[in-house]
């Protein structure tokens, strides 16, 4: 992928995650015991040999700078190219720009880059994919844009509001719309995918001039008939995180062996910033079942159906069920935590019980000390 720039557009502010996104952009949400959501995108780019990667970081960028930094864990700390983080752009009126304006602000970067193509991704997706064949097809067929989509069955309306591909009776793409849950099965646009750099530059500029679009997908939709658009169906596991529920469910799904294997081992290893945490220590009294546990923990209590992040301490007699405990959470002795997500550095004092609902986990904010 030496002729292609990876462009990660993230950082859209969101109030869908309780207090979890007060201190971080949604793509920085902790995931799977030791990762952040952005690790999927960065690892996927690294495993597909991208060496020039742009991350639109959005606001609240401190945790991004700490975790992503110069991109070393993904081998993106290069002398030539490498990883660049673009912080949020704020207009003269103090308002945040929309996506197209943000892209336009950084247009010089694209105009001067030696690469001819872009690969535009959404960091809220959990997928790992070998892009070789798709990229080759994009070049050979000489598409302007190659959109990535996945077919979703959505009887429950979990994907309402997602971008949807609309086809005519001949099966040709005619537009990009929004899923309102009217169909049992629909084609969900997962990411813009590959786009020619010249096409991208023209689209952004002309759309801003006309003022008829706020983001790249809208700009493509407006020009559907004029562009040569190809489609690529993603058939592997693709999870989309759009709120607390899907975030919780997707973490819990890791307790299924098949999903764990797909997510962690298929198409290259998942990389993240290493913390040199020691082994996890289980005591004589510990009782653990069906749980995912990261390194650096000290476990003396009972853990069931849970995801435990690095450096968590669980005291004697404590009970943890159906919960996700972020890094450095400390659960003191005899505390009970059920259906709950604790953010980083939460302390739950001895004897306290916290029980969330089966349908929506309870969230305890970062650094909070919960006392009786």
């Amino acid at each position: 992928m030496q002729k292609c720039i990876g462009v990660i557009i993230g950082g859209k502010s969101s109030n869908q995650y309780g207090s979890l996104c007060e201190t971080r952009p949604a793509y920085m949400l902790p995931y799977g015991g030791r990762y952040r959501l952005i690790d999927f995108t960065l690892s996927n780019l690294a495993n597909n040999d991208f060496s020039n990667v742009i991350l639109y970081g959005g606001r609240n960028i401190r945790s991004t700078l700490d975790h992503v930094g110069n991109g070393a864990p993904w081998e993106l700390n290069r002398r030539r190219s490498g990883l660049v983080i673009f912080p949020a752009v704020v207009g003269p009126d103090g308002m945040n720009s929309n996506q197209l304006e943000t892209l336009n602000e950084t247009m010089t970067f694209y105009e001067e880059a030696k690469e001819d193509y872009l690969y535009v991704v959404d960091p809220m997706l959990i997928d790992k994919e070998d892009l070789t064949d798709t990229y080759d097809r994009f070049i050979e067929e000489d598409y302007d844009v190659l959109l990535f989509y996945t077919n979703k069955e959505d009887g429950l309306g979990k994907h309402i509001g997602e971008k949807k591909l609309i086809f005519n009776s001949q099966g040709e793409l005619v537009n990009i719309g929004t899923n309102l849950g009217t169909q049992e099965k629909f084609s969900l646009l997962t990411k813009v995918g590959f786009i020619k750099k010249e096409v991208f530059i023209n689209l952004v500029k002309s759309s801003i001039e006309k003022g008829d679009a706020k983001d790249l997908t809208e700009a493509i939709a407006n020009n559907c008939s004029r562009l040569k658009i190809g489609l690529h169906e993603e058939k592997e596991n693709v999870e989309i995180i759009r709120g607390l529920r899907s975030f919780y469910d997707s973490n819990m799904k890791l307790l299924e062996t098949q999903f764990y294997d797909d997510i962690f081992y298929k198409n290259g290893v998942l990389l993240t910033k290493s913390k040199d945490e020691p082994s996890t220590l289980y005591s004589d009294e510990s009782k653990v079942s069906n749980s995912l546990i990261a390194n650096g923990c000290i476990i003396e209590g009972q853990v069931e159906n849970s995801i435990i992040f690095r450096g968590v301490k669980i005291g004697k007699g404590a009970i943890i069920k159906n919960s996700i405990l972020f890094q450095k959470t400390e659960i003191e002795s005899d505390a009970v935590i059920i259906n709950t997500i604790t953010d980083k550095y939460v302390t739950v004092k001895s004897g306290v019980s916290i029980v969330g609902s089966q349908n929506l986990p309870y969230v305890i904010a970062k650094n909070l000390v919960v006392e009786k």
Partner: protein
Amino acid sequence: MRARKRVVAMLLAGGQGSRLKGLTKKIAKPAVPFGGKYRIIDFALSNATNSDIRDIGVLTQYKPFLLNTHLGNGAAWDYDRNSGGLRVLPPFATEEGGRWYEGTANAIYENIDFLDDLAPEYVLILSGDHIYKMNYNELLDYHKEKNSACTIAVMEVPWEEASRFGILNTDKDNKIVEFDEKPENPKNNLASMGIYMFNWSTLREFLIKDAEDKDSDHDFGKNVLPAILNEGYDMYAWKFDGYWKDVGTVKSYWEANLDLLNDNNLNLYDKKERIFTKAKNLPPHFIANGAVVKKALINEACRVYGTVKNSVLFSSVIIEEGAEVVNSVILSNVVIKKGAKVYNAVINEDCIIDEKQEIGSPDDKNVYLVDDEGICVD
């Protein structure tokens, strides 16, 4: 650069470690995995990093491939510096032909150019095969305070074991008066840990003298240290009272690993003095329904369906249903198949223990080493 603390560490990592048997068949002793996710050399390297020692030379010799891979450019210990940092120093050839390092002192002598280039005030000699956490600055401060030519870190060992060590006889002020290399009747129980702080100018002079001496074994303990003392230089012993273990045999290797399950002063969970290592970046481990895990250290990417008691599991180990692992050390990528029973054992990397196979027994005093050539008793 003058502002730098002028200590250069020289880490002796050439050890063959033949008493570790199958564990060192392919790798040098310092590169042997330890404690679930480390290699033995990580302890000395991390101590040096945590003591803010900026430059370190690692002397390699025996089967260095894996050791070199592990060290890389030293980034894992923050030793990837523009100048200095970590340097791997293997033996090399000169106009007079190739020369293997003949002894600990000779290894340093052969690298005088490296040290002269860095021009340190002090040189710290370390060994790559001990498990301990130490702040070398305390040793350095003591060395400076006593105006010592050479300061040796010592530990009180049990009297009955004292004759296995180099024993130092000191006066009330901890000044060294006599060396006893492995004495039959030790006069005290202060054993040398093989950690020496030297004034570089003094060491340099004696290394050159030692190299010219054809009868010398070119060894610090046997030759160089007694020579410095005999010339009338002041040498002091500095007492260390933390956890320290030379993992010389399969049994002591097994013991040191299991020591981590108990309170042992080593505190691997102390973030201020972390032990660093090259990260494998593997996913968290999974404990299944029905698994029993009691008193154990478990690492990244393990999957436990059976029973694990009083044991250390390295990364990517699979314990299948009904399998039982007790008092054992299981290295990376091992699979313990259904119904197998493992007691008092060290299982080397990549081994597969067959279904219902039994190794050791619960009331056994022996320690078993399992590798691709079979089982041996230590």
